[in-house]
């Protein structure tokens, strides 16, 4: 089922055995998308539309950068969250990362900005 869906995304970086990722965040973004689809937040047609629009608008560029932008736009359009909230939590993660000694789990929940909303 999923493989059939993924086949609908033309340029998905893949080899003979499936999608390939260069960095962990790419796989995480990929997994988030599949999880939201499973949850019924959007249809696969809506996702491929969002992704292809992103790629068209951006012209060249990195595939998973487009993927991530498309995912952000789609969750905002579906009113799952807002762009401001995405920025806010992103910043909380950055502060938490910088404040976290190496070897400790990074936890933005200890940061007030991530708790709001």
């Amino acid at each position, binding site marked *: 089922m999923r493989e059939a869906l993924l086949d609908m995304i033309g340029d998905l970086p*893949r*080899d003979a*055995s*499936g*999608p*390939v*990722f*260069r*960095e*962990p*965040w*790419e*796989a*995480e*973004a*990929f*997994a*988030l998308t*599949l*999880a*939201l689809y*499973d*949850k019924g*937040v959007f249809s696969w047609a809506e996702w491929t539309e969002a992704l292809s629009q992103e790629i068209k608008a951006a012209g060249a560029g990195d595939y*998973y*950068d487009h993927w*991530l932008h498309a*995912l*952000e736009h789609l*969750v905002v359009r579906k009113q*799952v*969250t807002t762009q401001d*909230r*995405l*920025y806010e*939590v*992103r910043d*909380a*993660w*950055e502060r938490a*990362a*910088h*404040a*976290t*000694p*190496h*070897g*400790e*789990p*990074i936890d*933005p929940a200890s940061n007030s900005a*991530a708790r709001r909303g």
Partner: protein
Amino acid sequence: MNDHPDSHHDHEHGSELSEAALRVRALETILTEKGYIDPAALDVIIETYETKIGPRNGARVVARAWRDADFKARLMADATAAIAELGYSGRQGEHMRVVENTPVLHNMVVCTLCSCYPWPVLGLPPVWYKSTPYRSRAVIDPRGVLKDFGVELPVTTRIRVWDSTAEMRYLVLPMRPSGTEGLGEEELAALVTRDSMIGTGLPLSEGRAR
């Protein structure tokens, strides 16, 4: 919190996430809070696909080192440069160090849940690698952890655990299995498992390659 005056070492004492990784974490946090996703379900999806990024790059590095003594010498002296010869390099300029297993020394690598995993050569970290039990037990009881992975080493073999840092990633060079003298690089690479390059496993023996 450590503020380093030298920008070059900004992140020496803190952790770092790339811009894209920060945005993905933000999405994940919000979607989890709102109940749209379950982090455990995400792990399952990632695990399903993680073999696809695969440790094949690392396996090629190991196979080359087994066959080519000059390459191995360069690899042990400057792993980052030697690995780059094969076209594998990270974007964040982390340094690689290769640690070699011998009959008397077994190396094992541990790290944290941040990005300290040599993903240009090993792909995505397995879920257990990021787990608290592995991270804590690997240091306290490496022999016990190895046993859980089905690896029992002679008591005469010392185990050394390497803790990755933000700036130094380790790759274990496992011992070449016996009876593989006639094999080519591709065949050898097929014997090199991901776990054998983390140190929680051993290479496959000849005939067991997939």
